[in-house]
């Protein structure tokens, strides 16, 4: 076999340019997705039937269709309509970058909304009853109890979702974006060395996801610190009376 490290070294800067595009895509759509997912999750967990049904169609569609199809519909589909091309949205929809962010945002928001809804429903009912007993208003209860608790519960699953997003972001290469995968495919079209370049691209994804996993581990430790068992010795360091 003709394995060539040279080709990886020569083209590594171009792959690194792709890393930035990938990170931007994941970060921005993760952020927008989360902002969209929270109200949707609250609606989905609401006792009001109409509020519950409203986001159902959206979530059903985005969870039930492939992301690639969603990207193509938003990028190539929207541009088929003169009305869209003449609208004020066109400067945004014209750019593959924003089309990818829109598609990823809508997609991840649908999944995250369901994750957060599950987390909200998993909050022990005693804690909610305690909030009621304190006489908290609905809004205050959501702000102080429901959301902070739900975020603690959802964190491991949400970290998973973001890592899936990182890998799905490779689909942006199908609409001409030069993310890691797009850069890799463009390099391969010239060098005919798919093995080396895809290997390098895979390693870059691996490094990014390792960092993300580590970050979520830290965040989890911090947000859920009240849940960790520390044993009597640790507790005794805080206050010896507690360990007795």
């Amino acid at each position, binding site marked *: 076999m003709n394995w060539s490290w040279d080709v990886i070294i020569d083209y590594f800067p171009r792959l690194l340019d792709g890393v930035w595009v990938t990170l931007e895509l994941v970060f921005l759509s993760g952020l927008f997705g989360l902002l969209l997912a929270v109200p949707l999750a609250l609606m989905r967990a609401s006792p009001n039937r109409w509020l519950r049904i409203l986001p159902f169609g959206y979530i059903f569609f985005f969870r039930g269709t492939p992301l690639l199809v969603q990207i193509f519909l938003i990028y*190539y589909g929207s*541009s*088929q309509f003169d009305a869209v*091309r003449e609208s004020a949205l066109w400067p945004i929809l*014209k750019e*593959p970058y924003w089309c990818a962010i829109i598609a990823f945002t809508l997609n991840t928001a649908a999944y995250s909304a369901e994750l957060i809804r599950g987390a909200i429903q998993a909050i022990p009912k005693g804690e909610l009853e305690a909030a009621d007993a304190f006489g908290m208003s609905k809004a205050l209860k959501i702000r102080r109890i429901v959301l902070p608790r739900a975020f603690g519960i959802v964190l491991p699953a949400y970290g998973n979702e973001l890592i899936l997003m990182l890998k799905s972001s490779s689909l942006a290469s*199908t609409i*001409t974006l030069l993310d890691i995968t797009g850069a890799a*495919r*463009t390099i*391969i*079209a*010239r060098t*005919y060395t798919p093995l080396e370049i895809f290997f390098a691209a895979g390693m870059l994804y691996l490094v990014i996801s390792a960092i993300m996993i580590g970050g979520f581990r830290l965040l989890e430790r911090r947000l859920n610190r009240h849940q960790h068992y520390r044993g009597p010795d640790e507790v005794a360091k805080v206050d010896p009376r507690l360990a007795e």
Partner: protein
Amino acid sequence: MKLRKLISVASLAAVTALGSLSASAADKIRIATEGAYAPFNMTNEQGELVGFDVEIAKALCEQMQAECEIVAQDWDGIIPGLLGRKYDAIVASMSITEERLRVVDFTQPYYSNVLAFVGPEGKTLDTSKEGLKGLTVGAQRATVAGQYLEDNLADSVNVKLYDTQDNAYLDLAAGRLDALLSDKFPAYDWLRSEDGKGFEFKGEDIDIDDKIAIAVRKGDGLKDKLSAAIAAIVENGTYAEINARYFPFSIY
């Protein structure tokens, strides 16, 4: 046990020898094409292979007075299929490249590919490097056009590469691209279609010395026969006749 094995091997060899003998006796030339590169090779509504390549192949067979069979084969596997003797020649608008010359032989070229810019009608487009500065130009990835853009214009032009030619056309029609660089002859076919209305060729063609020829197995005598036949149909006007059915200009 050993003897039986020997007999079976021997009889297998005999059958194989007989088989290849009868195949060569029939003298039927099997020709592969892709069937997905309009107007050079495509399948019509009846499922028949048609197009410029197919007509050239038929004309060559007639010239050589040989019996021919034309089969469709996906692009990815078209050279492996030739090497595996599934057919004897590839007439599928294949460019002569160094990589391919390592594994197959090519006849003399039967047409020359050039690149051309396509842009919206009525809009002036200066296709020089300075004229294109800052514009967005698209091409299909892994094609000579895509490579030309990257090699020559990437520093001053916003290059967008597409997975398929059709997606590049879609974005040109949507106005996301100022221009598109493509093989000229398929683009000519698109410009004549309903979707290509409102677009035209811009500037000068780019000659990248891309010669299209017929691929045969290395060392196969068919190469010289086909080359002679190409020269003959160019000479006797058959080529020009076929050319005129597809393009109002010579592509030889």
